[in-house]
């Protein structure tokens, strides 16, 4: 099978690059192992910098609504974070005094949404809070198993029964100017968010839960659909098992599901993520990139990989695949001519140029897509 570009990794970086290239008329394949960091996405495009408008437009074409406004995002444990671009689900406030009075609503027995923490934090900023719980008969089956009351399962039930919750919340609502609900709505149908927002004479804010992230999963599904609508090939639940390289150029890769068939391409993009996604693998003595054996900078002394303070910046997060200025991956000290590394497999090696987190994923995806497109013109 021959493609213009093969992307390894179907997370935020891989999908952004894939859509950009497919939009430019390329024939692209994405090999995706399945779960990725989108499942833990807070909805905040950290460090998005100059890519703010471009990504909003690209996502809009996929049906992903973003909100570009500077303000404060209320985090699940009650802290505030300064944001510039977020998913539409995220509640962004112009100031940390978010309302005079807030009604915080949770589901009885849902322990992954922190009403108590939110209330205490909001009250410090002058918002008086009331916490109330709802339970609807249509969700009771989730309780039969003790580990089913989790965000995505509730979201699936809400796709069918959100109106019942809205009518229960109407009964609870008094004179509050803000109603806070967990982010468990609109998994299948994004328009539900607006229908809930307009159902009350008060502002409605959706606040994050423990992962999995419902907005993140929805976004991943929409981006994947957009990529496929554009004609891209998305190989779901598959992984690259080996690569053929000659004289510093990658010619093809094999995958587990395709057996002996090879994926040939002019360009390859490595977007396999950090340690959690196994883009980087650490052993007691080394850190390596398992597919191509690319160069990674890290100290030999394992003691220097960690800070003993969990909440400090951890050195191991700075390790990543080394690249040249065009984000071509380095192997044995030389750039591989047609292999690019994007997203969190770079670690914080490119922090100064492309930021971290979602910003890093999107900005490096755009940069590499532009390089590849430029080369083709």
């Amino acid at each position: 099978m021959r493609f213009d570009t093969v992307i390894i990794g179907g997370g935020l970086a891989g999908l952004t690059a894939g859509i950009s290239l497919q939009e430019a008329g390329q024939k692209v394949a994405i090999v995706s192992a399945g779960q990725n960091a989108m499942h833990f996405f807070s909805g905040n495009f950290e460090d998005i910098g100059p890519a703010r408008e471009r990504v909003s437009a690209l996502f809009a074409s996929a049906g992903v609504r973003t909100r570009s406004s500077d303000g404060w995002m209320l985090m699940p444990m009650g802290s505030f974070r300064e944001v510039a671009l977020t998913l539409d689900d995220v509640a962004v406030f112009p100031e940390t005094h978010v309302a005079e009075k807030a009604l915080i609503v949770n589901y009885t027995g849902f322990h992954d949404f922190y009403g108590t923490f939110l209330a205490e934090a909001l009250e410090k900023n002058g918002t008086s809070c009331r916490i109330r719980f709802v339970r609807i008969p249509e969700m009771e089956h989730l309780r039969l198993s003790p580990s089913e009351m989790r965000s995505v399962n509730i979201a699936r039930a809400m796709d069918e029964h959100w109106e019942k919750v809205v009518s229960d919340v109407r009964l609870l609502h008094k004179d509050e100017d803000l109603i806070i609900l967990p982010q468990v709505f609109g998994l299948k149908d994004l328009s539900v968010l607006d229908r809930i927002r307009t159902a009350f004479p008060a502002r409605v804010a959706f606040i994050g839960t423990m992962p999995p992230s419902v907005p993140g999963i929805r976004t991943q599904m929409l981006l994947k659909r957009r990529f496929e609508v554009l004609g891209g090939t998305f190989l779901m639940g598959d992984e690259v098992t080996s690569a053929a390289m000659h004289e510093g150029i990658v010619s093809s890769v094999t995958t587990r599901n395709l057996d002996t068939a090879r994926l040939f391409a002019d360009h390859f993009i490595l977007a396999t993520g950090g340690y959690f996604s196994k883009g980087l693998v650490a052993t007691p003595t080394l850190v390596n990139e398992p597919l191509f054996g690319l160069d990674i900078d890290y100290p030999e002394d394992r003691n220097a990989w960690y800070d003993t303070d969990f909440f400090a910046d951890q050195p191991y997060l700075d390790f990543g695949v080394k690249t040249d200025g065009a984000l071509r991956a380095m192997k044995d000290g030389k750039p591989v001519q047609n292999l690019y590394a994007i997203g969190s497999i770079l670690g914080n090696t490119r922090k100064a140029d492309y930021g971290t987190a979602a910003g890093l994923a999107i900005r490096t995806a755009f940069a590499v897509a532009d390089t590849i497109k430029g080369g083709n013109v």
Partner: protein
Amino acid sequence: MKRNEYDVIIVGGGITGAGTARDCAMRGLRVLLIERHDIATGATGRNHGLLHSGARYAVTDQESASECIRENMILRRIASHCVDETDGFFITLPEDDLNYQAKFVESCLAAGINAEIVDPKEALRMEPSMNPDLIGAVKVPDGSVDPFRLCAANMLDAKLHGAQVLLYTEVTGFIKDGDRIQGIRTYNHQTHKSGEYYAPVTVNAAGIWGQHIAELAGVKIGMFPAKGALLIFAHRVNGIVINRCRKPANADILVPGDTVCVIGTTSTKIPFEECDNVQVTPDEVNLLIEEGAKLAPALASTRILRAYAGVRPLVSADNDPSGRNISRGIVCLDHETRDGLKGFVTITGGKLMTYRLMAEMATDLVCQKLAVDKACGTAETPLPGAGGKNFREVAEKIWENPTTVQKAAVGRLGMAAARMQSSDSLSQSLVCECEEVSVGEINSAIERLDVSGLTDLRRRTRVGMGTCQGELCGCRAAGLLAKAHGCADRAREDLKAFMTERWKGMYPIGWGDALREAEYTQWVYKHVLGV
């Protein structure tokens, strides 16, 4: 009569202090127990959790060996819910001397330990994880014991017999009248208040920190802080305890416990200043994996959950640099006869296994001083929660058709699980999925077991001890604590401290899946939850 007056004050909330408090309270004394941190924070919670048969000491220390086997049999009776009767093997590997085996078996039998030579092939069939190259195997009545549960059960029973327990309270000095200790001065780290408590006898049961307590009282005990490092693996690789049949050395015991197994230990003398903050070094980790894989080769490729270390409260006798040759025997000091200081007793040395006997010896001495003539009953009276051989049997005594969650709770609490709320789906919903800890069990621990924070909760319920090391359940439990204590700020700070403490045991083994988990946890806490 002064306020804050007791018959006896016990310093130290480890297993020795808890056992002594229980014994004293059962003999009718008015007891106050003072602990600087939480229960089981020192060596009690930082060992193998091995229910020694005594075989390990049979060749070198007959006295310790026979103490062990007697206490081993007692704990099976009085603390059945804390004990897993796994049995143990002492295996001989090709590089070991097989002649040692005969001497070993002979010494075991002399100490009253039922040691039985098993054909290596048969032994491998019984415990398939063992090194297949073994050339000899001896079966002994080892087992595993949950030290947190055991300590909590002793503490609870002491309280049920009227003892008062003050946690997070440090002894800052002694109140003396001439050559007599009359009481203690304290400082509470949570309320930031000082206090004074009086009793005719004070028992120093502070483990390695006992040297400092003795200094405060004005007497000197020469202790030998010997650090022992251990690793916890994410699976129960072995069902039977595996030991090396040779003179005790590094990393030669592998103990299965609940869903995990533990390899250890090393033995290194450390300076006293380090006792409060022992770190596990990369060299120790490497040695534990290398030696552990000789017992059970699968360890080389099994995920490690965490590394930890404890400090043995050995009493120094000679210049042995490793501490291995110091007796693990019990040291009970009457400072009146030893130093001319009245009203002060030190109980130290010994082992987790012999805590009950240590408590009995200390309590006998206290009773003698107080002229109380009452016999010790701790060897016969079961601890709260004990009450059946296996979890299912106990669970079925409590509930008609116990659920998985209820059975898991019985595994931790024994009969005491009857007291937790578990009849409805709300209280059965899981907070910790790795260890199957329910909302009901957590709320019950908060109500009954002096829980002031997440780390305390972990010691009593195993929340955060599983493969995720607390990243998910930590938040859920913090939510419940915030509700129970009515303070979200405190719960948030507590969550940070909890994650920092979890990380302390993770970074020494920070590679492979452990590092994947750590990266994920970093992401969730910093970027998703915004802690």
